[in-house]
């Protein structure tokens, strides 16, 4: 597969760039932030996403979606990153849609996928519990009770958990924390008895939730996939999410970089445009190179998860790690090269830095994925 976007993907990118750039630029995000909007995103915008077919990109056609792939989702994620657009796209259209389309029963697919595609259902994936992303250490227990299970434990950083109509919860139904397997995924109604949701606003002014489960009763038909064997499905869905987050980071990095280069061309100090200084030129050229390498690695990862390639996990770790490191560099250089202006809330570049910090942690930072790669290569 060629590592360039096809004509159709380029058209999708252009329409995403148009919609998101026009209706949800950084000013849109600032407004929601400043008004302390309870949802943290615009329902109208999400409706437009659904009308444009973005919400159903990964939903099969028979369930009302367009049945496209992760490369297409990545194209939208990149534009979201470029504009810092708050949206349920990642949690609902990417993670939940993939989890249900790949792991769901026919009844579950019929119940949820059409609603994801038409924008009427918002869903969230609840995985992490500790300070760092460690899926194998999931401790939230699912204990067998009657025809179903009881969930007990807590989740942190559940993206869109504060507005979700449906939670996909990864729980330990067998084994001990640290065991690779013994996990089960559950579809949980956030209004169920025993679920308490604490809305958290993160450093980047995006929204998430800490959610606790106190003996929450779930039926057998709420199991997504197989009991005790949910790790493989979770891993697949996480890899799709990681590749998508890497694509969002690429958008963040590229936009922060573009704004920085524009600033280098206009800002004058010592009687010169600062872009004339070789020290800054070389750092900008280095950053350009790094970002182009990320672009290739992200596309490779998206293609690999689309084809369920054997090396998909490897390609995803490369992309997430590389995007994490380079995006961090891009936003830090962005703030530094903007000088004092970069430190002000009025200038956008600092907002990109805050977003990058969150995306770096989400589903494994660069160290996590370097470790995964070392394991993969067995050293």
């Amino acid at each position: 597969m060629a590592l360039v976007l096809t004509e159709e993907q380029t058209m999708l990118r252009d329409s995403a760039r148009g919609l998101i750039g026009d209706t949800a630029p950084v000013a849109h995000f600032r407004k929601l932030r400043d008004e302390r909007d309870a949802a943290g995103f615009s329902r109208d915008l999400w409706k437009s996403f659904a009308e444009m077919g973005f919400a159903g990109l990964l939903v099969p056609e028979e369930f009302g979606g367009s049945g496209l792939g992760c490369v297409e989702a990545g194209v939208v994620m990149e534009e979201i990153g470029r504009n810092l657009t708050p949206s349920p796209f990642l949690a609902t259209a990417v993670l939940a849609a993939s989890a249900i389309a790949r792991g769901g029963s026919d009844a579950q697919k019929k119940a949820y996928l059409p609603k994801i595609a038409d924008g009427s259902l918002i869903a969230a994936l609840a995985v992490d519990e500790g300070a760092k992303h460690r899926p194998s250490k999931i401790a939230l227990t699912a204990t067998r009770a009657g025809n179903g299970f009881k969930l007990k434990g807590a989740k942190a950083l559940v993206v869109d958990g504060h507005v979700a109509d449906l939670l996909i919860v990864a729980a330990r139904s067998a084994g001990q924390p640290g065991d690779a397997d013994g996990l089960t995924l559950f579809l949980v109604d956030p209004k169920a008895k025993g679920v308490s949701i604490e809305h958290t606003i993160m450093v980047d002014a995006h929204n998430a939730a800490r959610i606790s489960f106190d003996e929450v009763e779930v039926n057998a038909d709420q199991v997504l996939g197989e009991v005790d064997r949910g790790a493989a499905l979770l891993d697949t869905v996480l890899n799709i999410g990681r590749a998508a987050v890497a694509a969002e980071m690429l958008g963040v990095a590229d936009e922060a970089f573009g704004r920085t280069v524009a600033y280098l061309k206009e800002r004058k100090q010592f009687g010169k445009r600062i872009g004339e200084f070789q020290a800054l030129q070389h750092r900008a050229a280095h950053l350009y190179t790094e970002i182009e390498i990320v672009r290739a690695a992200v596309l490779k990862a998206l293609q690999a998860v689309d084809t369920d390639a054997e090396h998909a996990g490897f390609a995803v770790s490369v992309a997430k790690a590389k995007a994490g490191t380079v995006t961090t560099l891009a936003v830090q250089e962005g703030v530094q090269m903007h000088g004092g202006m970069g430190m002000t809330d009025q200038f956008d570049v600092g907002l990109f830095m805050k977003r990058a910090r969150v995306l770096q942690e989400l589903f494994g930072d660069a160290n996590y994925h370097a470790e995964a790669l070392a394991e993969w290569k067995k050293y």
Partner: protein
Amino acid sequence: MSDAASPDLDQFRSDTRAWLEANCPAEMRTPMQGDEDNFWGGRNAKFASDAQKVWFERMRDKGWTVPDWPTQYGGGGLDPAQAKVLREEMAAIGARSPLSSFGIWMLGPALLKYGNEAQKAEHLPQIARGEIRWCQGYSEPNAGSDLASLQTRAVPDGDDFIINGSKIWTSYANYADWIFCLVRTDASAKKHDGISFILFDMTSPGVTTKPILLISGKSPFCETFFDNVRVPQSHVVGTVNRGWDVAKYLLQHERAMISGMGGRDGGRPLGQVAADSLGTDDRGKLDDPILRGQIASFDIDEAALACAAERAVDLAKAGQLHPAFSSAMKYYGTELNKRRHEILMSAGGIDALEWESERSNDGARARAWLRTKANSIEGGTSEVMLGIVAKRILDLPGA
């Protein structure tokens, strides 16, 4: 998938796989250990082994020393998709390149674009068959990274030019049969405008070479002197005084070649090299957690760079590649290769320090480490590459 391989391409792949399986000697499927494992061709070519000879001759006879050149010039006539398949299938069995050649990597592409028919017909087949070994006369003592300041003069005399001057860092000039050379043909023109690109035989009277001993204790480089060397004017490639265009085009290929060097050495995975040397702990992890982390972070960068190299090929095919992108790749690839060799030295520890012993293969690892330090200097320094990116891609002022 929209660009799924056609049945023809699938057939080509299985034929190629079978041919390579039957024709590539086992010895030619192991990583190269040193420069002697390269076969460079030329009038005085020497094979390091029978396997090297057999492998070269079989590949040459198929035109696969230059698989994507036209068959009329000794190439394999493969289209880009087929050439990619061949590269992939060779990589899959770890097959060595049958012929190392500046003629293939650098001069050939420039001749295909700028050479006249007589020049192509004379030189390209000889390059493809490994009969003539070429060297590059670009840098001068006062014109390295500032290449356009070169002073070697070519003065017309009847149908010939008389060339006087000297070159430096001429890789393997002492083994080369011919040189492709930049000379000043108009001293009054602006720096870039009075330069011509000319080809001549290194056995021409007045050409001498002198090796330069490097910190690696070896000498791929030479100084080269021209004392009234007579060269027919018909040996100019492209237009007289417009050699800069040819030179720049060729440099793109040189930079692409150097940026690929890290991958081309067919080296063993760093994690494995380090494990052999340091051992592993009771969980099977490298017995130096910080070095393990450095290797993992290197592996991430290397794998990502490989994606970028693959994408560059695909972008070029789609007509979307920025012509200065090879500078970015050259910069990144060479810096990464230096990092690779720092890690190799670190993993080798005391054993990697040996300089003269059979056990160390004559200090191969240390010498290779020192050699890589030139990667970010030769073919334009890293700083020059960054300057090109800043100016031509980012359009920064005054760059």
